[in-house]
């Protein structure tokens, strides 16, 4: 047994931690000012009324939350957001995984294929949404031209309450899959080829290898991507401004978009604060839930 190395000579403790705090001060001034304190004041404001004209803000107790419970648009938007998450997260993760598996193999023109998958990620969402808006234009855009070619009539994907949200989801999946692919690619590179080789010698087919070796080893990555995807599903609303403006009749509005409208179109900042509290609570809950639920299934090396 080799004796453990003696620790490095510690500098005097006192000076030590003053140094550390000084180093941290600039970052924490900004962190507190624009993240932690606003999060707390949001909670505070959600219990108060919005100041209007001469009437100053006053304590409102749970009024904002009562309004929220009886607000049909809130429930609609919340439902939309949940559907949006269910519709985009598993699909984009699955596509990302397939992309990564394809690109990590020897493939003719691999550089082009990888670029094609990844390019949407680097483009501004606002620009991408404009491209898709054109793509979806009824009777005119490529979408209708392709469906028309197969004998379907004109369709107004974004203008119909039934399909508007789906149209928005497709754009999201298109934009996000390539981003998630990168993380899978990185993870795939860390899997030792000998493991796959050993499985093959044992007579395992490609599907068994994927199911029993590759996929379990990718689990931490899946968890990481999942958390990212959840946060994005509740944060990414840029494309809604361009594609639908939340319409028709709030059919494609999401929670953060509704917060934006409430605060900056109707200037009801207190109600917007209570909506933000719901969003924050939802995010925290989902992150925790995902962490504990998936954590048990994650295979750590």
């Amino acid at each position: 047994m080799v004796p453990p190395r003696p620790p490095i000579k510690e500098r005097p403790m006192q000076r030590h931690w003053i140094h550390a705090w000084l180093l941290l001060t600039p970052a924490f001034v900004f962190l507190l000012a624009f993240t932690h304190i606003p999060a707390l004041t949001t909670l505070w404001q959600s219990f108060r009324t919005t100041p209007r004209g001469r009437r100053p803000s006053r304590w409102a107790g749970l009024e904002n939350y009562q309004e929220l419970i009886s607000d049909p648009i809130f429930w609609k938007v919340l439902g939309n957001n949940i559907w949006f998450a269910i519709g985009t997260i598993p699909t984009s993760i699955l596509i990302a995984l397939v992309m990564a598996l394809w690109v990590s193999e020897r493939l003719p023109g691999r550089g082009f294929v990888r670029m094609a998958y990844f390019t949407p990620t680097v483009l501004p969402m606002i620009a991408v949404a404009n491209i898709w808006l054109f793509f979806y234009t009824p009777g005119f855009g490529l979408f209708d031209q392709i469906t028309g070619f197969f004998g379907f009539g004109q369709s107004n994907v974004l203008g119909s309450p039934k399909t508007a949200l789906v149209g928005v989801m497709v754009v999201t999946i298109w934009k996000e899959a390539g981003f998630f692919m990168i993380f899978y690619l990185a993870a795939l590179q860390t899997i030792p080829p000998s493991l796959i080789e050993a499985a093959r010698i044992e007579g395992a087919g490609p599907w068994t290898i994927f199911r029993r070796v590759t996929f379990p080893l990718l689990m931490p990555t899946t968890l990481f991507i999942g958390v990212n995807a959840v946060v994005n599903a509740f944060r990414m609303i840029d494309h809604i401004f361009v594609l639908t403006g939340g319409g028709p009749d709030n059919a494609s509005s999401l929670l953060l978009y509704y917060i934006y409208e409430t605060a900056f179109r109707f200037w009801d900042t207190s109600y917007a604060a209570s909506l933000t509290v719901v969003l924050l609570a939802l995010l925290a809950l989902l992150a925790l839930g995902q962490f504990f639920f998936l954590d048990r299934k994650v295979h750590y090396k």
Partner: protein
Amino acid sequence: MTRALNITGAWMLALIWVLPLAYAIWTAFHPAAYEARFDLFAPVTFENFAKAWEAAPFARYFLNTFVLVTVILIGQFILCTLAAYAFARYRFPGRDVLFALVLVQLLVMPDILIVENYKSIRYLGLVDTIAAIALPYIASGFGIFLLRQTFLSVPKELEEAAQIEGMSSLGIMLKVYVPLALPTYLAYGLVSVSHHWNNFLWPLIITNSVETRPVTVGLQIFASIDSGVEWSVINAATLMTSGPLLIAFLLFQRQFVQSFMRAGIK
């Protein structure tokens, strides 16, 4: 057999993935008459770009975005380096609590706290300035976390050697840690630049004049006027705003992909 299937699948998906973009590029480079009609021999033109450039002050928007992205990047590098160094190399009371507070920002982002942040900026009298767009993002929890992880992997022997030579702790940070973390800085820099080049909601809220608007907001205002701007012109403007990033990406594809990977896995 499986291999052929895989290749076909990979290529099919790749073609579907580039289709919207390719279509936009095609219309942007052809006269408006061809925007709904595919013709291989349609004349190529740059007129759409010229029209878009004249129709809105894009030059100014580009300048604004450039200043914005630079300010944020410099601010983030300085603040995150100092904080990450403290977390990686010091033991002090409250370290774990403070680090947890940093991690909170990965979930509770300034992007969501728009209402209260708008109030703070108004209180500071900074509405409609480029500084106002940058301020909430200057201290990045993600950046601190990433740099701390990198700093932790620096061998202690290097620090000891520098101490023996009589370097101060700030000197050690600048001469030992920062140079060794350069790949992480590159990775984080690329991610940060592309993120803030693309950012939209907060700049939309906090700016209201040509002098401060970044390209994303400028593009949205240009594309949403009802005056019936031709699609080919809008597409040209769209490509123009993503152009610098797209070109940079195509040139440095390897670094980009690796940077995003590096930023993600650590």
